[in-house]
């Protein structure tokens, strides 16, 4: 187990190094680094200070070392607009984004798995076909447009929930969260559902496919031959088997939830890091863009690592393989 984790950690380290090289050279090749680091209205002295600080007069590989060592110190530049550390600004916004993404993930599980189970266990029922057609639609609908339609329907026409913002928050373990207050919950439902829509469709299809596959396995028939009730067969024998692919995919999709939250946050004015990024792009606040880039890479690598470990815990066969290696 520890060998397995260690190996995955090393792989993650290599990915991080590769991505930092790409980001660094992306910044240097695609754009002028001075543009990236200095506010457009900065004077000559400021430009020279930055050139000195970041070693822009040095060879490229030395600049990269400076970039990396600064990044390790948590210095990814200073926001032009806010005048604060870009990293700090993003970290401040991160809980809002994480809360939204977790909420969406939860919705994908709570809505997607039962519907997928139902559609898989009764493949020929009309209701199952409706669920599957709905999930195809869920794949094809552009998220941002659905978000607008949701605001129009639920916030403007029906006036059930507020259209934008985060509402009241409470502090839990030092993080501000919305979903524990009534006002905050009414604010998070719509954006979380919007973000979850694609994943709900995905979970429905994955679960259904898993059910169809596993229900034909001999061990299900053997379980029936033992005289087990169908609820025990579905909830234990079937469920544990289909959970492996579902959890793996959902884990990997958590990263894309964070990525897609850029769209949802913009529509619902949710004060997370995605909205910060879009604002930064519009205001040419480049240090924030670079910092977001590095943080999202770290997040993705960490998520992939956690999913790998989780997968090995869920599937005893993988655990054994690794023990043997």
């Amino acid at each position: 187990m520890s060998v397995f984790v260690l190996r995955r950690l090393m792989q993650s380290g290599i990915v991080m190094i590769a991505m930092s090289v790409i980001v660094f050279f992306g910044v240097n090749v695609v754009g002028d680094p001075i543009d990236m680091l200095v506010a457009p209205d900065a004077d000559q002295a400021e430009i020279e200070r930055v050139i000195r600080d970041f070693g822009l007069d040095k060879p490229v590989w030395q600049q990269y070392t400076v970039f990396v060592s600064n990044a390790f110190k948590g210095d990814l530049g200073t926001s032009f607009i806010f005048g604060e550390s870009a990293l700090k600004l993003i970290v401040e916004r991160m809980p809002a984004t994480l809360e939204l993404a977790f909420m969406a993930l939860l919705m994908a599980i709570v809505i997607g798995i039962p519907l997928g189970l139902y559609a898989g266990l009764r493949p020929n029922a009309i209701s199952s076909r409706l669920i599957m057609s709905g999930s195809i639609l869920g794949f094809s609908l552009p998220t941002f447009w659905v978000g607008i339609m949701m605001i129009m329907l639920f916030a403007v026409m029906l006036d059930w929930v507020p259209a934008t913002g985060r509402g009241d928050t409470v502090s839990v373990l030092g993080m501000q969260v919305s979903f524990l207050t009534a006002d905050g919950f009414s604010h998070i439902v719509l954006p979380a559902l919007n973000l979850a829509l694609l994943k709900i469709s995905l979970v429905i299809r994955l679960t259904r496919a898993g059910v169809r596959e596993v229900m034909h396995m001999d061990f299900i028939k053997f379980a029936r031959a033992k005289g087990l009730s169908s609820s025990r067969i579905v909830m234990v024998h079937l469920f544990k088997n289909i959970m492996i692919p579902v959890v793996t995919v959902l884990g990997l999709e958590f990263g894309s939830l964070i990525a897609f939250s850029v769209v949802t946050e913009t529509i619902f004015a949710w004060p997370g890091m995605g909205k910060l990024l879009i604002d930064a792009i519009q205001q040419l606040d480049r240090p924030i863009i670079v910092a977001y880039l590095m943080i999202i890479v770290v997040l993705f690598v960490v998520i992939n690592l956690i999913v790998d470990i989780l997968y090995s815990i869920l599937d005893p066969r993988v655990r054994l393989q690794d023990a043997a290696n």
Partner: protein
Amino acid sequence: MTIETSLKPPRKQLFSGDTPMSRFLSEFVESKVAVAAALLLFTIIMAALFAPWITPQNPYDLAQVSVLDARMEPGEQSFDGYTFWLGTDGAGRDLFSAILYGLRISLSVGVTSGIIALVIGMSVGLIAAYVGGRTETFIMRIVDLQLSFPASLVALMLLALMGKGVDKIILALVVAQWAYYARTVRGTALVERGKEYVEAVTCLGLSHARVLFLHIMPNCLPPLIVVGTVQTAHAIALEATLSFLGVGLPQTEPSLGLLIANGFEYVISGKYWISIFPGIALLITVVSINLVGDQLRDVLNPRLRK
């Protein structure tokens, strides 16, 4: 029957009545939904191509647009008696016309980026499969690395660094998508490379390029076409998303995504039509491409043939 015919080398059939094309068409029309989607898609493409001739007004010709007509509801009439069936936007443009012009831009950006990504991805994938060894490992590591990030994020990051523009969004879409093509092509090319006909033509002393592009490549096309349709639909939706976010196309190139974005500010005041109709146009386009792609996959995948 179909299994037997498909076992014959495809070239022979060019001389018989049962050409691959006619067989393809007869299998494609088996699904009524796919035929309807293909017809719809054809209509959309035609409408976009001939937009200047079929729209009642050129929404970007200031002489034809009057701010006095701004935010008219669907079905209202302008001063000169023309009915805006889909209403007008904030600047008084006829939405129906604006949507067709928008489709033109959305489709051309999506298809252009799709084709470029296909050519690049295909070349890279073919080379990886044909050369093998370390080159292949290296290329595929990059492909895997990129595919571990969502395409939308890759495109968004590039645009964040580069700024707006038609050329930039096409570049971003190409970078975001090439890896999907490369992975697909490499997979099929590896299978093809192991087949005897490749061994045979190699023994004939043909050049590598000839073997690769004249013999292996045509056999990799069917799965590539399927991935191509799906990816083009993705590209169109992604462009709309990015333009909506304000990082894609500039206001001078009003694609469907920008039309939706422009209508967004009126949604709160209940003026639904400015956002909803361009969205429906986008939805119909994406869904019909996907439906056509689904049927193509069923027809072109030999394993699924009955």
